[in-house]
């Protein structure tokens, strides 16, 4: 009898050996990829990309929105939506405490920002996930906010841009979390029926239930260089097959070569790429 654990948010950070916390404070930071010691402000000015090796640091939703939207154009909605604890879930810690801790450390209510904004002058609906809030795991709040973002885009005939960063489903909401996959995908079916344009941007990491729902349903799917993208996490796969995983497996470039990502786009080009796709789709 096999028991196959599915992807979950807690799977990724240690595994990839990348910082679990948001970018550390201090004047100098070390690049996790090439180990170069970098002047913090020079990295910040480079959109959080290492000037030496082009490593794309994980960034939070606030930073992402700032990078993508024309200055001051982002108008958030559903900012106050907060997670509940429908199952009174307690593992080594109560879920309620995990929520509080995440809210405190990120200053956010949950792991996604939604709103309207202008991207190089084109109005769009934007949903940006935040990996630093419980690994960007999708519970009811993320499912609901994404779904409402899709609906706002549908109502206003606006292009929809979702930037994913998630370890997958939020286990502490169990079935409620699972059904968000169906809910968001169903909303995208309607949006598709009415001719809506959906640009899905996959960033490091995008795995599990988020990949297996809205993230893979873009009309155009873009990914940041070397982003980890997959259904099952590398650790789970390794445990199942008991083999070394090939070099570059489940990275953005691998997904492109397998036919599941349209373009690997460096962060510096993301705004203009999104803008030009919107133009082509006549939205």
């Amino acid at each position: 009898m096999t028991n196959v654990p599915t992807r979950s948010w807690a799977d990724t950070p240690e595994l990839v050996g990348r910082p679990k916390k948001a970018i550390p404070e201090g004047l100098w930071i070390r690049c996790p990829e090439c180990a170069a010691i970098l002047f913090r402000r020079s990295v910040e000015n480079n959109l959080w990309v290492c000037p030496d090796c082009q490593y794309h640091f994980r960034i939070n939703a606030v930073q992402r929105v700032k990078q993508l939207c024309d200055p001051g154009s982002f108008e958030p909605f559903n900012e106050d939506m907060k997670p509940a604890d429908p199952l009174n879930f307690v593992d080594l810690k109560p879920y309620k405490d995990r929520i509080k801790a995440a809210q405190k450390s990120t200053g956010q209510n949950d792991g996604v920002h939604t709103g309207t904004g202008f991207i190089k002058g084109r109005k769009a609906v934007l949903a940006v996930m935040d990996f630093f809030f419980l690994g960007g795991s999708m519970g009811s709040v993320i499912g609901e906010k994404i779904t409402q973002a899709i609906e706002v885009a549908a109502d206003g005939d606006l292009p929809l841009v979702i930037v994913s960063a998630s370890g997958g489903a939020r286990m502490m909401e169990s079935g409620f979390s699972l059904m968000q996959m169906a809910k968001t995908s169903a909303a995208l079916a309607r949006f598709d029926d009415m001719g809506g344009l959906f640009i899905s941007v996959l960033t490091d990491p995008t795995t599990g239930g988020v990949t297996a729902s809205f993230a893979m349903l873009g009309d155009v799917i873009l990914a940041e260089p070397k982003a980890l993208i997959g259904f099952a996490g590398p650790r789970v796969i390794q445990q199942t097959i008991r083999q070394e995983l090939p070099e570059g497996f489940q990275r953005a470039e691998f997904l492109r070569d397998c036919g599941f990502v349209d373009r690997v786009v460096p962060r510096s080009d993301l705004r203009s790429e999104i803008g030009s796709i919107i133009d082509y789709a006549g939205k």
Partner: protein
Amino acid sequence: MANGYTGSYTLAFEQPVTDLEEQIKRLTARDDAESYSDELTSLRSSRDSLLAKLYTDLNPWDTVRVARHPARPQTSDYIAAMCRDFRELHGDRHFGDDPAIITGLGRIGPHKVMIVGHQKGKSTQEKIACHFGCAHPEGYRKALLKMKLAEKFNLPIVTFIDTPGAYPGIKAEERGQAEAIAVNLREMARIKTPIVSVVIGEGGSGGALGIGVADRVGMLEYSWYSVISPEGCAAILWKAANEETNRAAAEGLALTARDNMKNGLIDEVIKEPLGGAHRDAHGAAELLQRWVVERLRELKRFKPQTLVERRYQKFRTIGKIEGSPAN
């Protein structure tokens, strides 16, 4: 034999029942068994009341074990028991046939339907071929292709869910496991023909939901359905999967039919025979068939647009946020 599982696999909590059954077997085997008819009747009734008691108080972790019982009926068993003239359709038209998902045309009662179901495998050989019910992308794509075929000819769709999860492997990732499931979720949401789904054993995460976006979703009484297996959850949140943490995870995940029903995530719990489907496959198939036939009869009354709208609303309203009303 009703209520009398004769296989060699015994669940720990069922040991007292197995002991009683052993006694019954020994008595019936005797040449003078007839003279013990009173004793036999009494033993059988003790066994039945013991079974009833055990299965009424079944905890979530034991429920998972029942759901994985090797003698528990699988999709192929239900098809054999419920369908006249089943015609399996193998082709996914893209890559190859995944035996972990069976699809085909069949009649259930008065209804001509398209059947889609996970298959775990019965023999060792079949289990390996089926990856123990863990489907690959081509399985999900075959399922969708056949569901679209059903839509074209206005046939209702019946899906049997029984998987620990979609297969996590190199080839599965290369061929787009996530994309295959995502597309199924989106497309099932807009298929213009009735869909009923039943979790017959294990409902493991996205791999289960990938054939489960239905107008009516039922769970057999001793099946489980959750975002992750208890072991997977324990390994991640408790940092170790063992008897104790698996049990705790199974409880926390609210994965039983009753809990999923209470949380509004499924529409119905379907009764199993006394002591679980593995004791009486035939009885389980009868109960399930009755449910499927009745639900299809109801769903066929809806216009396609109404059907799709109702299905949409059903999933649209799932989720609990702070301050939202209880389901």
